[in-house]
């Protein structure tokens, strides 16, 4: 399973979730598969997708907030896992697509092959931590993690999705929206009645 295949499984299960995307191919693949109004594409500020998502989740506790993160991003801001574990937002689901490389810059290895990011999440205080390695496991996990109402949960959840890096170079479009337009739409989606 590569990133595009994993995203194709997750996206239909999102419903009205607000989704903060890490930069690079995670934003670009998701944008090209389905450009949802509730998608925030972080085109720079590597590492901060989970921080942005936490800021939304704490202030909109009734909304599901999802992070599409990557292993390189998580390794760059591991303190964010610690803060999410400390704050315990019930409405936050943190998905990490872990291909063990910096995919957008030419597949240079990250160090996630040596670091169990799910174990870091568990130690940080995420209450529901899972790891999946194939499409069937992913399908089952997203149903269980994304379907429930946030009020039925005990705290933040974490799903480590182990994927294959794309060996061929991906010729995939960049985000065509202006950054300020992304903010306007995302804020509209936040304020929509659901």
């Amino acid at each position, binding site marked *: 399973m590569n990133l595009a295949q994993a995203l194709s499984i997750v996206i239909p299960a999102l419903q009205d979730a607000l989704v903060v995307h890490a930069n690079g191919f995670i934003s670009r693949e998701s944008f090209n598969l389905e450009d949802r109004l509730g998608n925030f594409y972080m085109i720079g500020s590597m590492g901060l997708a989970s921080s942005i998502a936490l800021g*939304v*989740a704490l202030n909109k506790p009734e909304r599901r907030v999802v992070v599409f993160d990557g292993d390189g991003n998580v390794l760059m801001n591991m303190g964010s896992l610690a803060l999410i574990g400390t704050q315990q937002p019930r409405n936050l689901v943190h998905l990490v697509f872990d291909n063990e490389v910096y995919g957008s810059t030419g597949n240079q290895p990250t160090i996630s092959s040596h670091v169990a990011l799910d174990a870091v999440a568990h130690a940080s205080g995420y209450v529901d931590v899972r790891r999946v390695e194939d499409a069937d496991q992913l399908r089952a996990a997203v149903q269980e993690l994304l379907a429930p109402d946030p009020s039925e949960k005990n705290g933040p959840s974490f799903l480590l999705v182990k994927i294959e890096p794309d060996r061929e170079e991906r010729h995939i479009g960049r985000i065509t929206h202006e950054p300020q337009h992304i903010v306007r739409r995302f804020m509209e989606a*936040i304020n929509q009645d659901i």
Partner: protein
Amino acid sequence: MVSGPQFVQHLRNAGFDFFTGVPCSLVKGVLATLEERGGYIAETREDAAVGLAAGAYMAGRQPVVIMQNSGLGVCLNALSSLSLIYALPCLLLITWRGYQGKDAPEHIIMGDILPDLLSTLKIPYRVLEEQTLEDAIGWATSTLKQTSRPTALVLPPGVTA
């Protein structure tokens, strides 16, 4: 000197309602007040605090990010590739270590370049004084509204404790 509770009250009166950051001894009293009243989120890094504030703003809050000027160095990419280009405002309350060249060695260079660094980033700022604190906070509030970008209040030693 303005007490911690007074300082926080001025910020709250101006509409600020979400506080995060990384501590500095120059704002000990301010942080103690915020922690006591709840609602202050102790971040692990200053750039993560800028990210957290960005999310809080989009969810309807008026955020303040508190940091030492050393932390402004940590924030350069978060400010330039997130807050400034997406137009996500937050009040940066930046303490001025290395003020007038008098401080521990690690603060001297950043203390010297702080105003130039903010100008280079095109982040509007004012240096706080006890007598004009409320005016400066009022200026920051209207500048944040006008520009929809980060605005800084720089806090030298001796204004609050």
